[in-house]
């Protein structure tokens, strides 16, 4: 090898303006100043600006941690106490400060050395700052997981909420007279198929305040739904309902297979206001049952979720559809190869491109908020928002595929004597159809994903339901919505990939 041809990398800087010791002192006063004067100007500027940024952020975090204190020492003390991470950070900043001083010395002394580890230190400080600002708390994963588990498990398996059993209250009543007299009210007739409640005796005394037990009643129920718990309740003469207690427990009986039950209860203690006093009272005894009356049905939540997922898919579809219609003509104005003919078209090109870029850089969620203001809540707002974003994105992708067509076939078709329409049909269209189809399906995919979320800001679709259910802490229903979204997106993912593969 010829040595004169070998490339010798040279890191040599011009010699320092200041002696190493002075450079170190200068960097101690203003971090980075020593480096700047030691001919490593850019390094000095980077160090200075990083250091100022770090110290500024530190000051902000410390003040934030102790916002009530005013005195500097008290602020720092409290901040360190509340946020131990700030202590670590302070130590690191101190190390960084000393390191910068040392670095200034090294840089000024030896103009060939450019240590890089200092920058790793700066990175480390920023990392720790990020940790502190981001309030990162990995322990929360472990300690708070238990609290989240019930809600999460409901989201993961919400299908109990998907079905609903129609239920109905079955009620049997019987009047008890207090106290017993000779002429008791007539017991009602038992009607076939209707729940029937009876008691022997049909009258008695309440438990007294002094603890004298009331009359023991033998309650018998017939025609109740079998194997479903029956509550025993009272309705006092004032019309207040309360449940019968026995030995501290609410009384519940379960009828046998024929719907018959028997239970002995002691008449309860109940204080009535003096105004309600009379010689005899009618107390109503009730047997109440909540029994299912039919087969399982799909729940309201499930039906709503189905409705909304359909709405969601159509929001995405309509947005894609409008997006295509509007993006097609726009894409021609945004294609450089078509617009480079004259200065006017070039200006149009830049104008269209610029607007498209701005529109595209604004998230669909923001567009949805704007659309909701304009047209109100609902799917139309979602369609508008997604359309706006789709137009910008599609026009860009379309125009890029127009820009990349091969001019060869155009030339060849023209050479056969074909006219303009034939040339477009035979040389341009076959080239742009596959990328157009591919981009469109890709966009459709994105739009349906986005439409599941757009409801969070009122743009219709299942996101609207999901947001509502989450806020109502109805995690079962929210789970159904989440499952629907996941299934839809998965199917869509697969189909769109499949279709695109066919076309490319």
């Amino acid at each position, binding site marked *: 090898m010829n040595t004169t041809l070998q490339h010798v990398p040279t890191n040599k800087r011009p010699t320092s303006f200041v002696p190493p010791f002075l450079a170190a002192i200068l960097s101690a006063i203003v971090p980075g100043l020593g480096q700047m004067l030691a001919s490593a100007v850019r390094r000095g500027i980077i160090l200075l600006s990083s250091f100022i940024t770090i110290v500024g952020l530190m000051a902000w975090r410390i003040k934030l941690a102790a916002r009530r204190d005013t005195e500097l020492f008290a602020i720092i003390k409290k901040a360190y106490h509340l946020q131990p991470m700030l202590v670590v950070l302070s130590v690191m900043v101190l190390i960084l400060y000393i390191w910068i001083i040392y670095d200034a010395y090294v840089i000024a002394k030896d103009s060939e050395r450019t240590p890089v580890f200092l920058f790793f230190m700066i990175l480390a400080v920023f990392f720790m700052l990020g940790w502190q600002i981001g309030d990162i708390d990995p322990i929360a994963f472990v300690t708070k997981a238990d609290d989240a588990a019930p809600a999460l498990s409901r989201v993961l398996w919400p299908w109990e909420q998907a079905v609903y059993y129609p239920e109905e209250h079955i009620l049997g009543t019987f009047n008890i007279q207090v106290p017993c007299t000779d002429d008791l009210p007539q017991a009602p007739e038992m009607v076939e198929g209707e729940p029937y409640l009876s008691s022997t005796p049909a009258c008695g005394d309440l438990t007294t305040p002094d603890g004298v037990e009331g009359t023991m009643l033998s309650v018998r129920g017939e025609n109740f739904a079998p194997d479903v718990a029956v509550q025993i309740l009272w309705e006092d003469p004032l019309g207040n309902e309360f449940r019968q207690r026995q030995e501290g427990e609410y009384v519940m009986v379960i009828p046998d297979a024929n719907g018959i039950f028997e239970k002995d209860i002691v008449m309860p203690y109940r204080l009535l206001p003096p105004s309600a006093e009379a010689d005899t009272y009618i107390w109503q005894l009730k047997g109440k049952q909540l029994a299912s009356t039919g087969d399982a049905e799909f729940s309201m939540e499930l039906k709503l979720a189905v409705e909304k997922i359909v709405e969601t898919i159509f929001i995405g579809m309509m947005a894609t559809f409008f997006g295509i219609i509007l993006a097609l003509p726009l894409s021609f104005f945004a294609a450089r190869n078509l617009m480079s003919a004259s200065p006017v078209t070039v200006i149009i090109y830049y104008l269209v491109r610029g607007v498209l870029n701005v529109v595209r850089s604004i998230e669909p969620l923001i567009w949805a908020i704007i659309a909701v203001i304009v047209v109100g809540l609902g799917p139309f707002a979602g369609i508008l928002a997604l359309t706006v974003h789709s137009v910008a994105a599609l026009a860009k992708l379309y125009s890029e595929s127009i820009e990349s067509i091969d001019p060869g076939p155009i030339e*060849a078709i023209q050479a056969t*004597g074909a006219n303009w*329409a*034939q040339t477009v*049909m035979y040389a341009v269209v076959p080239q742009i159809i596959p990328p157009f189809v591919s981009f469109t399906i890709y966009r459709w995919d994105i739009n349906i994903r986005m439409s599941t979320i757009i409801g969070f800001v009122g743009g219709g679709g299942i996101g609207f339901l999901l947001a509502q259910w989450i806020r109502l802490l109805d995690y079962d229903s929210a789970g159904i919505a989440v499952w629907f979204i996941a299934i839809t997106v998965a199917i869509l993912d697969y189909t769109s990939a499949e279709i695109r593969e066919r076309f490319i």
Partner: protein
Amino acid sequence: MLEIRHLTKVYDDGTVALKDVSFTVEDGEFLIVIGLSGSGKSTLLRCINRLVDPTEGDIIWNGVNVARLEGEVLRESRREMGMIFQHFNLVKRSSVFKNVIAGRLGFTPTWRSLLGRFSDADREKANTALQRLGIADQANKRADELSGGQQQRVGIARALMQDPKIILADEPVASLDPVLAHTILEYLEMLNQEDNMTIVCSLHYLDLVQRYSTRVIGLRDGEIVYEGSREDIRAMSDAEFKEIYGEEAQRITGSISGDLEEAKPGGQA
């Protein structure tokens, strides 16, 4: 008969591609245009069928000044001139058959062609053309599935569909292996001799020039620097060839044992 008179082409950016070029091509000739890349060969060929508009000069094609034509009449003149390209210029995603039948576009009413409804006669013609070039079995494949040599044959078949009186071939073998170059040029020779088509072809290799041409013109910087008959070119030595052509000129042998390594760079120049 094709007559080029004082043809000049200056591009918008000021590049002078052709300077006062004049020559005549008799019917049935196999005219080969030689010259370096950028010498104006492509521009010259594209001026003849007006893919490029000449700045000055006349192109008299069987008594019609193609340089002055516009619109429908221009397209009718184009129909009579088939063109073959270095990079084949096929629509890669379309089938071979669709590429070939596109050669009939100039003869088909717009609405019919937009619906893809070519006449049965045209379809028959396409099949015949494919058969003639030995690629009938590839008709339903996508054009980009074919090898380079096959793609160029599709290009020739497309040109044949026009029933051209002249074929303009812009470096038809420059993207192909030297062995395939002979195959393609033999097809052109067949069209020249059997169908009596005039061929105007640009080429790089002296061997091929000597083997196929009936006449040669040399271009350099847009000007004709050499004009010679079949005899002149056959007698030409490598040194002379290089003088008009430039140092890049390569000689290839037609056999398979030919030095492909040596031939390729010249071909791509």
